[in-house]
């Protein structure tokens, strides 16, 4: 089943009268359970693409359907609610609320969804256990390493049971060991829980772990390689 269907998406930025074509008529379909890397040189449009399929930005042309919802037709406010219910995000940095503990950060999204307390607490524990942070639950982000913070971010992204997780260069700020560790966790969640991951990266070791690699060049898909 497709979780994302994007058809003919183009994005033009025109900040100061000098239009930049960041994406050019991209067609994309992501199926449930994929572990997909979006790769390409800097400025090739990876972030732009992830933002559009994540409902953070709107394409200049084309349409995006997520889990049967035409998100390109939603208003800004509707998009906020849509993201809350259906999409998990892991950013390169500043993923967490600094004044909340790991536990509270994970619980926070479920609070936004008004999930009952018992469910929130159980799921928070389960998720922090899944990312190997049982002993760091009551630490604030500032007391965690970069890798640990990203693992909390993954747990947080999973909390609302999203259709898929978008991660824009999740390992860019991590050392080799933390990168490996984070990818192990993501791969395991993908394998065991059938969580769909779409992540962008520059890192060859990360690319090697992907089961599908979409390469962008100048805002267009240059190759789309499946490795199953």
């Amino acid at each position, binding site marked *: 089943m497709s979780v994302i269907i994007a058809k003919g998406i183009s994005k033009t930025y025109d900040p100061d009268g000098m239009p930049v074509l960041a994406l050019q008529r991209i067609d994309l379909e992501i199926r449930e359970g994929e572990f997909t890397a979006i790769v390409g040189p800097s400025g090739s449009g990876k*972030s732009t693409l992830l*933002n559009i399929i*994540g409902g*953070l*930005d709107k394409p200049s042309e084309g349409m995006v359907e997520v889990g049967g919802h035409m998100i390109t037709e939603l208003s800004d*406010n509707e998009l*906020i*609610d849509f*993201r*809350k*219910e259906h999409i998990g*995000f892991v*950013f*390169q*940095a*500043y*993923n967490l*609320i*600094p*004044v*909340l503990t790991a536990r*509270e950060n994970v*619980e*926070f*999204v479920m*609070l*936004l*969804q008004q999930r009952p307390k018992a469910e929130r607490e159980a799921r928070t524990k389960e998720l922090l256990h899944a990312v190997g942070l049982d002993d760091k639950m009551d630490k604030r982000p500032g007391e965690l390493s970069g890798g640990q913070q990203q693992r909390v971010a993954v747990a*947080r*992204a999973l909390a*609302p049971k999203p259709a898929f997780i978008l991660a824009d260069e999740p390992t860019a700020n991590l050392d080799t060991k933390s990168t490996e560790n984070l990818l192990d966790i993501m791969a395991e969640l993908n394998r065991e829980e059938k969580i769909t991951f779409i992540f962008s990266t520059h890192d060859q070791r990360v690319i090697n772990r992907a089961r599908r690699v979409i390469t962008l060049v100048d805002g267009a898909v240059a190759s789309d390689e499946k490795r199953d």
Partner: protein
Amino acid sequence: MIPLIAWRNIWRSRTRSLVVIGAIAIGVWAALFMTGFATGMARGYVRSAVDNIVSHLQMHHPQFKEDYDARFMVDTPGAVADRLREMPSIKAVSARAVVNGMASTPKGARGVQIKGINPDEEAGVTTLREKIVEGSYFLPDRRNEVLISVAMADKLHIKMRSKLVLTFQETSGELTTGAFRVAGIFDSGNKPFDETHIFVDHSDMAALLAPGSPTEDVIQEIAIMLHAPKTAATVSDTLQSLFPGLLSETYHQISPDLEMYESQINTVSYIYLGIIMLALVFGIVNTMLMAVLERYREIGMLMAIGMNKIKVFSMIVFEALMLGLIAAPLGMGLGWVSMLYLGRKGINLSAYSESLRLYGLEQIIYFELPPETYWQAGIFVMFTALLASLYPAWKAISLRPVEAIRKI
């Protein structure tokens, strides 16, 4: 969890938050201080006017005050006074003869209001006896003595033991004169009053004012002090129905300026609060704006993961409200302590005594604060904080998550 986040966010920039909290607290304190000062001054003024001059209630013949015509006397004043003294709410009663006339000396003449008083009765009602600064209060068995004020002595160029001739109309309409000797000089602290009033012994005056009438019946005014000033209006009503032939008035009715002065204080305190809060608005706006701008990416992230605009908006508003919520009690506490101290010790303004005297104000201002001022100040602060947070909160929700996140 939003209040919790807001609370913790406040303490991220501890120093900055403490500075705003301090500023708000000092603002509240300043407003309370100024209100306490103004109220103390106003109440002091009213109190001294009541104690020295007006008393709580006065009773006259209904027509007396139209022209201060001494013919309009109180009917059976002895019986009235006796009945008044029996009433539990009444502390003291003084029956007076009152007439307008002329005080002259070889060097000058002035229009005055002459009050013929019974020295002992009067001492229970006004503070005249304590206000004597030179000479003495009426002594028994001395005849035709007069008490004048320092201001009057100046105007008439006379001093202790000087002779003073009083001229006024008898109740029959005839002009009469009497020679009096200055026995004491008083200073009530209220220059306008002092410049127009003199006191003589009631029996001396009655003899001149209504020769032939029984002395004790020559009464134009009955001044009454109550145990509780608050009861003035109700007691006055009671007296009015008890003595339908007389006009009973409270100090508010006699001196409408007192009432106005008292009520103006409320307005004044709102103005102080308003000005101070206006200044605080800028401080709070600035702080909250900084808090929003430095958390630009974080707020972008929150909106990206699904925190809606209402929640983001209320988070910022909460932060400002919490600053106010911490600061307001601090300021109120400071104010309360100041009131406790200055209410007892007062502030001595004798350096400005000349101008204070001109307006009948006391030299030592004992601070007073109506209790409701505290919560009014609290509400003002919270309202100010709310108002000041609106713009920063609006700034926060109008950021676009993609742009905020791009900066990561």
